[in-house]
């Protein structure tokens, strides 16, 4: 079992559609990060959220940290083929400062 559960595992959509992916846990996290990984490359950091309820925007990407700091979501508006990749959440637990990665959501945006 993963401490950070990501859903859906796979998502295939048409260009122009909106989508939301989720990162959930039963543990409280002091911070959560979102990474995007393209095929054949390493993950690249998109954003870090640290405050419960925090919302951050990065162009068409909106990231939210849950009020209780147990979950996070990534919403993409008008998805483009360039958004295709594996989206990973990662975070540091509030109790023992352990760092975990989720298993990722694999997004395919078809032109």
């Amino acid at each position, binding site marked *: 079992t*993963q401490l*950070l559960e990501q859903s859906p*595992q796979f998502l295939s959509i048409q260009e122009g559609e909106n989508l939301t992916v989720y990162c959930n846990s039963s543990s409280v996290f002091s*911070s959560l*990060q979102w990474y995007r990984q393209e095929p*054949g*490359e*390493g*993950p*690249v*950091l998109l954003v*870090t959220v*640290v405050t419960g309820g925090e919302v951050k925007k990065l162009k068409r990407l909106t990231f939210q940290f849950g009020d209780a700091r147990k979950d996070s979501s990534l919403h993409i508006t008008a998805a483009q083929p360039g958004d295709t990749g594996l989206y*990973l959440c*990662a975070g*540091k637990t509030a109790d023992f*400062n*352990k*760092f*975990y*990665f*989720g*298993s*990722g959501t694999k997004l395919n945006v078809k032109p």
Partner: protein
Amino acid sequence: NAGVTQTPKFRILKIGQSMTLQCAQDMNHNYMYWYRQDPGMGLKLIYYSVGAGITDKGEVPNGYNVSRSTTEDFPLRLELAAPSQTSVYFCASSRGSIWVGNQPQHFGDGTRLSIL
């Protein structure tokens, strides 16, 4: 902008063989990490280093060894390759600790390793 460089990109090993995965960073980062990424399992931390001469075990260290003789280099060694070590290996670095503060990790492009 080299960042984190990993070599080789691909390798096939026979069971029982040994090899070293190379990792170098040019950002003068103190912290370096080795992860393995298996399908549907996310990234698991194998070993990490907080500076030259200092290394420690992560979540899945068995079957691996590391050394850190310089700030730049952090090689990962497999002594007796086993099929369970078939995976994609990523090296990462950060300026500060990922367990304190919110340091971003900078990843290399990975080494895809198959043990047959």
